[in-house]
């Protein structure tokens, strides 16, 4: 249908004029990004039994240990791991499922921890980068592959890449280089050390097959 509205009609105040008007009148500016709260403040009181309410004190299985933790209903797994459980190896690069730096395993499947609500992993097994090496310090084969090939540069993306690879190899133990690249292509490396990363992860896959 043809749009016959003209600029002069009352229903079509130019957006620019409108915005300028609103702003000049003193509009509040929004900047909501990472949100979390350890205490209840200002009109956000927990409403026990109210609609959508959930138990806050829960137990999570992380790296083989049961960890009791106080979790808000809107809290993401990445925030719980980093700020409640002290597991800062899981990195936040974007907080919107774009970069993969926060990848962890949930029941052996790689997930972006920034985009998983903590309450949804109750009863599941979560593994982070801190949980890969053995108690005696022996590295996981994928970690060993990274060490042998000096994979990665700044390494901020490394925990996510390693977890994504461990998860991928569980279902694809013998990938070609190209298949492995596809398997972990949901992870960004800004140093763009992709070639060496792929060499390191391929070496990890090789070590894992031999293990």
């Amino acid at each position, binding site marked *: 249908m043809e749009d016959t509205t003209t600029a002069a009609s009352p229903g079509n105040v130019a957006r620019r004029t409108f915005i300028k008007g609103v702003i000049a009148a003193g509009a509040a500016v929004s*900047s909501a990004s*990472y949100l979390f709260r350890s205490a209840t403040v200002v009109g956000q009181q927990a409403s026990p039994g109210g609609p959508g309410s959930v138990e806050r004190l829960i137990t999570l299985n992380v790296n083989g240990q049961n960890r009791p933790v106080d979790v808000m209903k809107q809290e993401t797994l990445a925030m719980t791991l980093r700020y409640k459980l002290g597991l800062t190896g899981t990195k936040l690069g974007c907080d919107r499922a774009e970069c993969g730096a926060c990848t962890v395993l949930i029941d052996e499947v790689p997930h972006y921890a920034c985009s998983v609500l903590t309450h949804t992993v109750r009863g599941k097994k979560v593994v982070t980068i801190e949980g890969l090496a053995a108690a005696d310090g022996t590295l996981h084969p994928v970690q060993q592959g990274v060490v042998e090939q000096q994979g990665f540069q700044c390494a901020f993306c490394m925990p996510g890449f390693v977890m994504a690879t461990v998860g991928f190899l569980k279902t694809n133990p013998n990938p070609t280089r190209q298949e492995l690249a596809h398997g972990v292509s949901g992870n960004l490396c800004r140093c*763009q050390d*992709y070639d*060496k990363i792929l060499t390191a992860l391929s070496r990890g896959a090789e070590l894992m097959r031999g293990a």
Partner: protein
Amino acid sequence: MAGTKLVGQDYTTPDLIAKVTGKAKYAEDFRAEGMLFAKLLLSPMPHARVVRIDTSAADAMPGVKAILTEKDLPGAQAGLTLGENVRATAITERGLTMEPLYEGEPILAVAAVDELTAAEAIERIVVEFEPLPFVVDPIESLKPGGPNARTTGNVWARPPATAAPQGRGNQAAAAAPTAAGSAPAAPGQGTAAPAAGSTPPETRAAAAPAPPAPPPPEVRELKWRTEDFAAAGDGQLPLGEATDGWTVGDLEAGFKAADLVLDETFVNQSTSHQPLETRSAMAYWQNGKLYLHGSTQSTVQTVSNVARWVGIKPEELVLISEYTGGGFGSKIPGAISMAIPALLSKKAGAPVMMRISREEEHYIGRARQGVHSRVKVGFRKDGRITALDLFVVGDNGPYDAQGDFRGVGDWVSLDYQPMAMRWRGVTVLTNTPPRTAQRAPGGLQANALMEPVLTKAAKKLNIDQVEIRRVNAPVGKALYGPPAGGKQRYVTSSFMKEALDKGAELFNWEERKARSGKRQGSKVRGAGVAISSFNAGSTGFDGLFVIKPDGRIQFQSGVGNHGTHSMFDVHRVAAEMLDVPWEKCDVVFGDTGKHLPWTCVSAGSQTTHAMTRAAHAAATDAIQKLQEIASKTLGGSPERYRVEGERVVGGGRSMTLAQAAQKAIALGGKYDGHEVPADVNAFTKQSAAALAGQGLLAVAKDSYKRDGNSVSHVAAFAEVEVDVETGQLTILEATAVSDVGTVMNPRSLQGQTFGGLMLGIGHAIGQRWVYDQHYGVPLAKRFHYNKPPTLLDKPMEMKFAALNIPDPETPVGARGIGEAPVGAGAGAILNAIAAAVGDEVFRRMPVTPDVILAALEAGKPAHEPLTTHI
């Protein structure tokens, strides 16, 4: 440097286990008792004046602990090093502002008990803005009657009364040696740092006779004439008034001697640095000192900047930055936003963590200067460039004058060695996020402009693509850049031709050339070659290490750890000279409380060159001290002793390094660091004093002579496959050959070379900003819309070689590599695309599938020729 045990060998860096197990701590991984969280209030408008702030509703919230506005900040910090030789002026960025100059500029910050409360407080603060004129496109601002980004004007220029060349071709411009910099700092001294960029300060200092200091640049208004726009051809950049320029050689004669003249316009996009770790920071105060956990490329050289941003003395700051998640130029001296948690913490009396989100990082995280360039090039029949006339318009962002637009001229002049050349330019202020040096600033833009022109010329002249680059390549101590003080500067060495030859062989150039442009089904392949060069080293810094009484060596490092590996590589030079196994060496880094020496910024590809020299100087100092100690202990002259196998050996006698270290402590004086050479930096002296008495202390300044500027060179080749029905591009192979002098660490050299190539490739195939020009707001603010290359964009095959020819002007022979590959990466892909689908497809980057498809349909470049950020 004859080493082979460590230098030139692969090894595992000592920080890798911490990284791969998740134990490595980046800025946001630190916690402090009672830590508050900060949030920023960002400007919703591209340019406005804040007329009223009402924080009463936020103040009333129980969890809100402090609010910070511009009035809480120290005054404008003129003189700060902003990277790439850019110095802050009186109207420099301060971190928070009452006159936001781009959408997303921080107005104020709130610290609260948790982040949700801080965010809620931000929502409750009322800010009243008075909108001001804005512009996000430099060409729009240059149009008659076009808007200015700042109330005082739209370009940076020197005052017209004294020096400034106003008209085109004004030769007076040649006398001005630098862009917007103030007087050059002595290299390696004081708080000013030589940084990434096209004009190392030492070069300027060496230019003789030194011209009188030019007046500082200022913002003024410049509009081009309607006739300038009318005179520009279809899609060509108008050649209006420039604010600066230089000429070398006889341009007119050069064009007369040309058999072919091409006149081309190319648009380089602005791109965000996008380090994967944003510039989050955590700060607290203890015993009158500020403890700051931040993300920086350089450890010691960040101290003075943070101190000035916060308004304290450098000695009142302890900076902790053990691991940095990438910088690429955006964190050379840290980040101005570090001052916000620091000052909030002071105000609130509690530690403050300020986490920066990806979207906030887009705004405050810095970006490369986009440029519009037009170049007229004269070629002889054999491909030699006889004359080159270049005009560059820089997209400066809103703050201090950037140097990329100038660097384009310098790097074009080096890589293609025109027999005569003129450069003219202007850097135009826009209401877009602040710019700074990004990996190969000006260099990438230079190669992206010139490489397709060379490709076109070779086709017209029927010359091989490798050959036309060989004919024009820099050789040996090649001259380049403006004739400052009557003389051009020159590089220490260049083996670009050898790199091209080696690359052609490795890439199978002849075979791939033969199948280039041949269509199979909907797919057509294309092969391209490109070159690039970039700064790769500075001089004059200090080496500092201790031989401990147990025989281990403890190296002190002041560079930042953003994963370049060079921060560890350089100490292997000293270990090699002292014949100590790497397993017996420790490197102390990342904390200015740990007594670090004065070192280069970890930027401008300086570390490998600068700090191998410093390591060599310190190791030489250690050897001399060891010889003297052996002489004093075992008898005989010092000269009869040599250092090998962890011992000092001579005349049938020997002592271990451990024994020598113990003896050094007993002797005191210069041996254990109680006396240090007068010529080392004050920062180093302070650190040496703190380490004195712990063992044999080696400390020395790099005073080795250097004739020329250290520049590395790369030749790159690529083969692509384009689907002409979908526009999809697949990069089949890329090959790179680096001329970086002596190879320190082969595996990391290859990784850095490929990483640099990929950064260039990202510019060629995808990265860009998108702006709504009408409202002046960005639309591509996150990875999803402004995506760096992924594993699937990487060339399927990558090959690498290094020439490994030592640099003649440095004792270790090694230069840096971080930036040199970037331009060749972009250029090789652009040329491969042109070989596949023709020269008349693109006149800008990135070349996306829609650009390819639209051009194939139209038979000519079909994108908007000059509009920026589309």
